[in-house]
């Protein structure tokens, strides 16, 4: 008797490439790779052919040529004879400005609305629900256009501020809302102002140090130092003292009506405000939902446990609920920041000169170098996205529940 066994696999057969799981994945990957290479080379050949037909080439030389157009908001010095490169850089800075302002405002609005949606107060709860639904379900482009219309069509012209009984007046004699933008007082950095700034920075460090010390003392000895007013005092008292001792080196330059327009002060254009405010309220609605979901994700038992330990409601919020909620809230909020930064490219709809408006708008139209400019544009946004997701991954790793 002999047991019948499978004959050992003799040789490699071609059908095994498709049917044998050991080799199949290689076949598929090979096919995928070949298809990809074919696609890329087909597109590349077309590109070369098309460029040759039109007598063009791929070159980034245009970045060094004079741009020849003006940019109305210049965080760094720029003239229309500067290079396209510098114009693009001004655009990048403008993008970063509106993204930063937008993220900051969206966070404030979002946290407020998210907490208010959980409020005991019926009418506040309903109002916030209406806010969130209204803004989440309407395209951000429409909101940008609406707020831009408010800023340009509904605001008074500068000459409405003129005369003995003007039709419009400045808020607190310092801020003028006009259809050409908003004029706010600008700080003038006089002699010695650096010292004030340095003292203020030192006080921030001091306040942080004090809080750390108080926490350590609490954990080591159980003695509870007051946190709120001493840190406020450390923050502001030395700075104010120095400010007055040095004879008020930082003063404000108020906008005043000169001729047909306001002069002096800081001019914030309507396009910036429209973009900033629209992005902030739109993203704020999303952040509000994230905040609400995060707070609701903390189980009610945690709150009850804290209460049964005898903690006061404010401490329950600060020590028990928020630390757990933040773990849920922060990752989606960071991706909302990313969305806001990407949505800021809608600046082109209201004429705000961000990087899409300079590099992807006027530079593209003037030089006709579509491939190069759009590639650079995409790389810029890609770099920002990768940086933000890098931050997010680092944060996620840092707060991951350390389970044994």
């Amino acid at each position, binding site marked *: 008797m002999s047991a019948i066994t499978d004959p050992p696999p003799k040789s490699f057969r071609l059908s095994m490439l498709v*049917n044998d799981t050991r080799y199949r994945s290689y076949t598929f990957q090979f096919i*995928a790779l070949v298809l990809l290479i074919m696609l890329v080379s087909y597109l590349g050949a077309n590109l070369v*052919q098309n460029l040759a037909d039109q007598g063009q080439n791929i070159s980034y030389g245009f970045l060094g040529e004079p741009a020849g157009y003006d940019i109305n908001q210049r965080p760094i010095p720029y003239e229309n004879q500067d290079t396209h490169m510098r114009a693009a850089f001004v655009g990048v800075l403008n993008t970063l400005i509106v993204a930063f302002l937008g993220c900051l405002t969206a966070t404030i609005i979002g946290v407020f609305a998210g907490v208010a949606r959980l409020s005991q107060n019926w009418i506040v709860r309903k109002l916030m629900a209406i806010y969130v639904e*209204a803004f989440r379900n*309407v*395209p951000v482009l429409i909101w940008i256009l609406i707020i831009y219309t408010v800023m340009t069509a509904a605001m008074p012209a500068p000459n409405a501020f003129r005369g003995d009984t003007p039709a419009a007046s400045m808020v607190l004699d310092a801020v003028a809302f006009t259809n050409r933008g908003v004029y706010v007082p600008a700080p003038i950095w006089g002699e010695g102002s650096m010292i004030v700034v340095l003292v203020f920075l030192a006080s921030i460090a001091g306040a942080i140090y004090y809080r750390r010390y108080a926490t350590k003392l609490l954990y080591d000895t159980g003695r509870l130092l007051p946190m709120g007013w001493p840190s406020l005092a450390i923050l502001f008292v030395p700075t104010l003292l120095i400010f007055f001792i040095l004879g008020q080196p930082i003063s404000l330059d108020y906008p005043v009506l000169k001729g047909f327009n306001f002069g002096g002060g800081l001019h914030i254009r309507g396009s910036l405000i429209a973009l900033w405010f629209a992005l902030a309220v739109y993203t704020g609605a999303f952040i509000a939902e994230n905040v609400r979901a995060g707070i609701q994700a903390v189980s009610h038992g945690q709150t009850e446990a804290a209460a049964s330990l005898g903690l006061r409601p404010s401490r329950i919020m600060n020590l028990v609920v928020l630390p757990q909620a933040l773990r849920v809230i922060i990752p989606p909020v960071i991706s909302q920041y990313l969305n806001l930064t990407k949505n800021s490219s809608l600046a*082109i709809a209201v004429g705000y000169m961000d990087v899409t408006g300079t590099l992807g708008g006027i530079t593209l139209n003037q030089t006709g170098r579509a491939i190069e400019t*759009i590639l650079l544009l995409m790389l810029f946004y890609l770099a920002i996205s990768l940086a933000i997701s890098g931050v997010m991954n680092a944060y996620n790793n840092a707060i991951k529940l350390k389970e044994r």
Partner: protein
Amino acid sequence: MNRDQLSFVRHDMLPEAEPPVTEKGIVKWLRENLFSSVSNTVLTLAAIWAVYYLVSASGPWLINGVWDTSSLSQCREVLQGQVGGCFSVLTERWNQLLFGFKYPTHLYWRPALAFVLLFVALAPVLFSKIFPRKMLVLTGLYPFIAFYLIWGGTILTPIFALLGIVLGFLVYRKLIYQSAAMGLLGGVATAFVFWILTGMLGDTVAGVLALEPVASRDMGGFMLNLMLGVVCVSLSLPLGILLALGRQSTMPIIKVICVVFIEFIRGVPLITLLFVANVVLAYFLPPGTNFDLILRVIIMITMFASAYIAEVIRGGLAALPRGQYEAGDSLGLDYAQSMQFIILPQALKISIPGIVNVAVGLFKDTTLVSVISMFDLVGMVRGPILASTAWNGVYWELFGFSALLFFVVCYGISQYSQWLERQLQTDHH
């Protein structure tokens, strides 16, 4: 000790007293929900003031609205300085807002019919418990009918497209017994061969049962938003599933391709992709080809949406317990079968809220095409209507109307998805 010595013994129950007036009904509700503390009262008063401000500002504007004049100046005459909206811009430009300004007027019934049929096609998908499964045939036929209605041309074009898909499916069914990969390859190849063969017929059949053709550059208005939204979402779902599976794959090359594609698309704003569709894509196509802007935009938006949907579905796949994958393997199912019968049904169910979010976001993002000078709803409002002499300056009515249209659609979709989630809930709470 007798009874007289006891001072008081109650023999019967007291009648139930009414709760104090502050502890019942509307007063109690008001006290608890609106005036429970000082800060709460302040909040309530502030909120009431805000509501009053909004209503008093927009109320007269809505009530005094004028609906039947033909220009802004006429409307102002009718209003005579009163506060009121000139809603006549909506009635006068109604067709333009919905269909764009170039779509032939006498053909409006065709997109309108396609729109009505959309509900018939969607009903069996959205409410699978109410409508019989056989109605799904209508859903399958709908894209071809809608194409025929909106673009016109010979009826043979959509019929050939449909036949190609049917043939491909038949071949797929024949080959699926060998392996899923063979079936897929065979099916796709058959469909393409059929399309190329019928494409050779070309102009010789152009007149068969032809509706008056409409070029896609003539389409606009809210119709364009709806078209882009519906087409791109339905195309990006299967693509997104494939990308998500590819990203989960153990094959390194396929995984890398999918990861790079997804991360690249998610890293750039949609507007740059639309720029690509507008000015760059033509460089990568064979010289002389010139397919229209709408198709290029559909391709780019579909790529964009599929990357986001892939990430949502990947989340669903990752949320499934490992045991489900192992269960599929232990039943002896191959990869395609275990995905089709075990993994994907569960993963897609988990992903519904995320997919709906992407769909709503995508539908809102279709307004971005106005930036590359296509005349969708926002493009129509900003371009031909606000620039016309008759209606220059009617901002609120137009923007408010656009916002309202989008709100109705998007809010409807998100409410539906919440209802669907409750329907699909199989665990017991």
